[in-house]
């Protein structure tokens, strides 16, 4: 497989200049994630409003290009969505990475679908799957208000 399929321009660009980086003001949900095998760490901060919409979504952390880009793209796609839609997008992403399923979500426009699909090359690199999924598992934990830190060795 061509490395350029894994390291697409959009991934390199988000890896270098991640969006929504830092703590957002007034966040009311947060969660931590950690990959003990490689040392990647991520914290996500959410502001969920009265109507159960994700008003703000930001992150802090360190990791490889894949993990930073995946997290950056995640914040762009989930920010502004309702709680339920956010969960659906996360499931679609995880199914794409694990089972190679297509992204069919009606909640994402074409441009957003291209962004999320730029991460599909990760499936060909089993060692890197957890780099891409760490922050998404962490976001689930934050949405559910769980206090447990996500550990990639303990999730699927």
């Amino acid at each position: 497989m061509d490395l350029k399929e894994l390291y697409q321009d959009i991934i390199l660009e988000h890896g270098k200049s991640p969006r929504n980086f830092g703590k957002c003001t007034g966040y009311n949900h947060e969660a931590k994630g950690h990959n003990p095998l490689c040392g990647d760490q991520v914290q996500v901060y959410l502001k969920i409003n009265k109507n159960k919409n994700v008003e703000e979504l930001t992150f802090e952390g360190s990791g490889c290009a894949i993990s930073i880009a995946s997290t950056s793209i995640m914040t762009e796609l989930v920010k502004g969505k309702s709680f339920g839609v956010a969960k659906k997008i996360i499931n679609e992403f995880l199914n794409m990475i694990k089972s190679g399923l297509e992204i069919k979500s009606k909640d994402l426009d074409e441009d957003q679908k291209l962004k999320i699909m730029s991460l599909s090359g990760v499936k060909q690199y089993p060692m890197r799957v957890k780099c891409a999924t760490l922050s998404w598992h962490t976001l689930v934990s934050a949405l559910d208000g769980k206090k447990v830190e996500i550990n990639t060795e303990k999730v699927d």
Partner: protein
Amino acid sequence: MINEVKKDRISYAQLPEKYEAGTMPTAEVVAFNESIKFMNEIGIENLINHEKELTNYALEKMKTINSVKLVGNPKNKAGVISFTIKGIHPHDIATILDESGVAIRAGHHCCQILHEKLNLNATARASFGIYNTKEDVDILCKAIENCRKVFDLK
């Protein structure tokens, strides 16, 4: 140690026997003997010299690659070289090198505290043995140079 093994179930012995190995590692013992024979045939001195020569060759060559930063410079250096590449996380380096058939290790190498002290979130690490050649080092260096191309870094 087990208590009883059936097709569909197993029960273990009481502690502490439960955690005692039951079967002798026969294959490992035979392999260990062969390894010692192999090393004695070549000679420990020759093994060490080969590793030293390769390591020095690699160090000199890697120093000429501008983006590479070598980590650690002990007096008695073994055939192990830790390094970073500006702008690329070690796990990405490992994946890119892997595509050229070069296997390295990336991460904390079981010493997270040292990495914190050095203010590094991870390092890449190449190592050499008697089975490696100068040509292998050349392939490693070429693959390292390819990292910045894949990442579109000048």
